[in-house]
């Protein structure tokens, strides 16, 4: 492992021209980068557009949310750069520690004075001027921990029930804490991501099916016990039955899509964002995008997310081929997480999934989400970078991307 870390080229030499090919060596996956920059840029534009009315009404400054989002973006880029500088080996070692940190983070939410309640949910921790949504970081750390576990206990995972169940216990502990907030969306994404990783880790199919069954059962139980969930579920199945109460948000989102048609009503011309659509700049940003920029751009965003996820899986696959399973699992995990969260959010916007309170990665307003996702992207790039360095030093194959 130490050997592997030392093989990674120092960053300073990353842009050196390859002597063999004469081409400039580019250390990043360009397609991934293209997807990330496009989505983040488009996201910024849409946050600006969707938040002006709300911002002006709440704060008197129409660009209140835009300025904050720009600051968050700066912080996210700085932290991403820092994360990129850390070799994957350190992350692997830190895995169990991060898991412990997760528990601490989630408990902080419940500490009076720093825990912060919004809309009936204790999801935020107030640190000075900023509110942190802990679940975003928890999801990130869970992936880093689970990747390490799958590597350390590869055989157990593939052969014994214990190897399969042990990490799940830890996840259930986190899930319980998240449910107490409550943050069902985060639980769903975290568990689904974990299951995806275990699937790729080789967990036996029947165990997997059993677990799936158990989780579905738990979810159903949860819905039956909590009427608030139930209401959200029925609202999503038939929002037009009660369009002014439980179906309000969703019908407004759907109307936004219908208004958008092929090319949209024009940037800034959304009507739904004029207080008709709640959370227009956060959870329902995609609906405003669809209204203002139409089917064309909505399709583009879905395609960019697809590209992002496929590149992440490809990066993972290449790392795996180079005998770097930890890096591979991290890449898979990040890809599945971002994909799940993006597709869930878009699905919620379009009324094919129940409302969950999930942000659209890279695009929605919100500092915690932005930071967590950018660190995840940085880790993907780090995996890619280490793989390429490995190839170069081994001179096994020509540079390609």
């Amino acid at each position, binding site marked *: 492992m130490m050997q592997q870390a030392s093989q990674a080229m120092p960053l300073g030499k990353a842009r050196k021209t390859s002597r063999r090919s004469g081409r400039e060596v580019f250390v990043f996956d360009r397609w991934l980068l293209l997807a990330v920059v496009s989505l983040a840029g488009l996201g910024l534009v849409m946050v600006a557009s969707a938040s002006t009315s709300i911002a002006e009404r709440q704060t008197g400054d129409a660009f209140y949310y835009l300025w904050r989002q720009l600051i968050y973006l700066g912080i996210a880029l700085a932290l991403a750069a820092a994360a990129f500088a850390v070799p994957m080996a350190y992350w692997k070692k830190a895995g169990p520690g991060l898991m412990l940190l997760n528990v601490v983070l989630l408990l902080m939410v419940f500490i009076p004075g720093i825990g912060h309640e919004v809309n009936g949910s204790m999801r935020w921790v107030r640190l000075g001027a900023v509110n942190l949504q802990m679940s975003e970081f928890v999801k990130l750390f869970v992936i880093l921990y689970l990747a390490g576990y799958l590597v350390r206990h*590869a055989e157990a995972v593939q052969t014994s029930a214990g190897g399969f169940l042990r990490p799940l216990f830890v996840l259930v502990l986190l899930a319980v804490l998240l449910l107490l907030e409550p943050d069902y969306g985060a639980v769903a994404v975290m568990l689904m991501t974990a299951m995806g990783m275990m*699937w790729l880790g080789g967990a036996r199919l029947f165990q997997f099916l059993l677990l799936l069954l158990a989780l579905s059962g738990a979810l159903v139980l949860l819905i039956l016990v909590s009427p608030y969930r139930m209401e959200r579920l029925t609202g999503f199945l038939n929002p037009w039955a009660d369009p002014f109460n439980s179906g309000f948000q969703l*019908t407004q989102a*759907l109307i936004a899509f219908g208004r958008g*048609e092929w090319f949209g009503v024009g940037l800034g011309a959304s009507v739904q964002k004029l207080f008709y659509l709640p959370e227009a700049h956060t959870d329902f940003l995609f609906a405003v995008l669809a209204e203002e920029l139409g089917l064309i751009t*909505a399709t583009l965003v879905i395609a960019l997310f697809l590209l992002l996820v496929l590149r992440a899986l490809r990066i993972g696959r290449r790392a795996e081929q180079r005998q770097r399973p930890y890096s591979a699992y991290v890449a898979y995990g990040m890809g599945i997480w971002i*994909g799940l969260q993006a*597709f869930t959010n878009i*699905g919620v916007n*379009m009324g094919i999934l129940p409302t969950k309170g999930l942000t659209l990665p890279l695009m929605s307003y919100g500092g915690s989400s932005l930071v967590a996702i950018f660190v995840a992207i940085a880790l993907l790039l780090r995996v890619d970078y280490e793989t390429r360095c490995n190839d170069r030093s081994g001179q096994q194959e020509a540079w390609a991307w």
Partner: protein
Amino acid sequence: MSDKAPTTVSRFRLKVVTGAVVLASVILLWRAVDLHVFRKDFLQDQGDARYLREQPIAAHRGMITDRNGEPLAISTPVDSVWVQPKTFSTAYSEWPKVARLLDLDLQKMQRKVLQRKDREFVYLKRHITPALAQKVMDLKLPGISLQREYHRYYPAGEVTAHVIGFTNVDDKGQEGLELAYDNWLRGVPGRQRVLKDRLGRVVRHLEQLKKPESGKILQLSLDRRLQYLAYRELKRAVLRHKARSGSAVVLDVQTGEVLAMVNQPSYNPNDRGQFKSSHTRNRAVTDVFEPGSAIKPFTVVAALQSGRFRPGSMVDTAPGRFRLGRAVIHDVRNYGRINVATVLQKSSNVGASKIALALPVDALWKVNDRVGFGMSTGSGFPGEAGGLLSRSHRLREIERATLAYGYGLSVTPLQLARAYSVLASDGILRPVSFLRVSGPVAGRRVIRADIVKQVRRMLEMVVQPGGTGTRAQIAGYRVAGKTGTVKKATTGGYSEDRYIAVFAGIAPASQPRLAMVVTINEPRNGVYYGGEVAAPVFSRVMAGALRMLGVAPDESDNPGLQLAAFARPAGGRP
């Protein structure tokens, strides 16, 4: 190396994950197409139902001008503040700011809004200046909106208040010509489609469904300068004589147009707070009084028409008293045997009564009826009184006698002015108009021209030395007129200390252009004769009017006459 395990992920499992990601994307894409393309009509309808609203566009009410186009009533844009109570309640903590800006009592405002929580529309305050309205909107509260309306402004204020009347807060005519010509003045509001945000604020004006049609301009017959002059003189007289009220009417005798009509007390139509019926009534049209001696010219007309009298026919008025049954008719003093002209000049009640009783039973009634007493003038003024005129053949002798000097019938100042305009226009009765009339107005002959000319000459004697109305003289012009000092009817008879001073006249007498009536109700400052109280008002206003109209003087300057006018001691008689 801890990464000792061989490749752990089978290609198959990765392909399943990749497939799932692609499948999810395809589902999302399909759904996006479904919503964007196939369901757009339904969804757009749903959206439109939520934020498209139709709103009226206020129409401008027509301007009212005087005969020369000077504005007398104009509409200025104002804003009214209204709220949607439910939405507005979400900003409850901000209400004190709104109340302070709008100068409303906070508790009353709270009660008003909260009691109407199930309504969609509640006015907070109406007709505020656009600048103040903007300040309210700058608070950026939910559920608060403006409505453009028009506020009526009357530049001439109390001077034209009675004739023009006023509109209510909804811009509908309530009194006067504003009411009479409401359909003409009123605009037809248009409609527009607007887009509202969820807080009920209009964010976009989408289309005009119907253009608002402005009301039409109403040009009145009034002459603003003459109106001011008449108002000033009447007000001065009412104040000086501590009178209860007063009216003055100036008619153009060739067209029947009302050139000026003023009353006291008046009110400021721009301040709705002080409206009182006693102040807002257009007394010249709505209030009737017994005309007293001012009716005598028509008694003489009846006498001349009968053929039984000529201007020089003698009537014995001695001894200044005339007993009819239990009643006694008095003159101021014993005039002895006098001719008909002198009966008018001295205003002899005994003479008038004796003439009346010598005529056929219906003669007086016929003349009074034909010059328009007892019926509306047809001016169309809201609330116009028709007065009272009973047919003589049903009357007892005493009643026919008193009718001859103006008791037992009631008229409005406008009716009296119109009747005098018949004397001015050689016997033609024309409809009265508050609107400017162009061209000659056809009338109806009601009295023979030669008789009218004879009566006019007698009436000139009234303002000449020896008559009761010398203070009605105007330098350079010949004036014909008649004074009246009317005892007011009270319960159980006629009052001995409450009078109405009247002067009715026409000028210039040789070729009359204007007829004017001045009534001063209950002068309480010592003098009360029509010739003392009302005639000077006539003189000043008529003099100004003739000059304004550019009427050529019909009398070479006669300083002797003027001097006589001023030198004569107060000697008016009823």
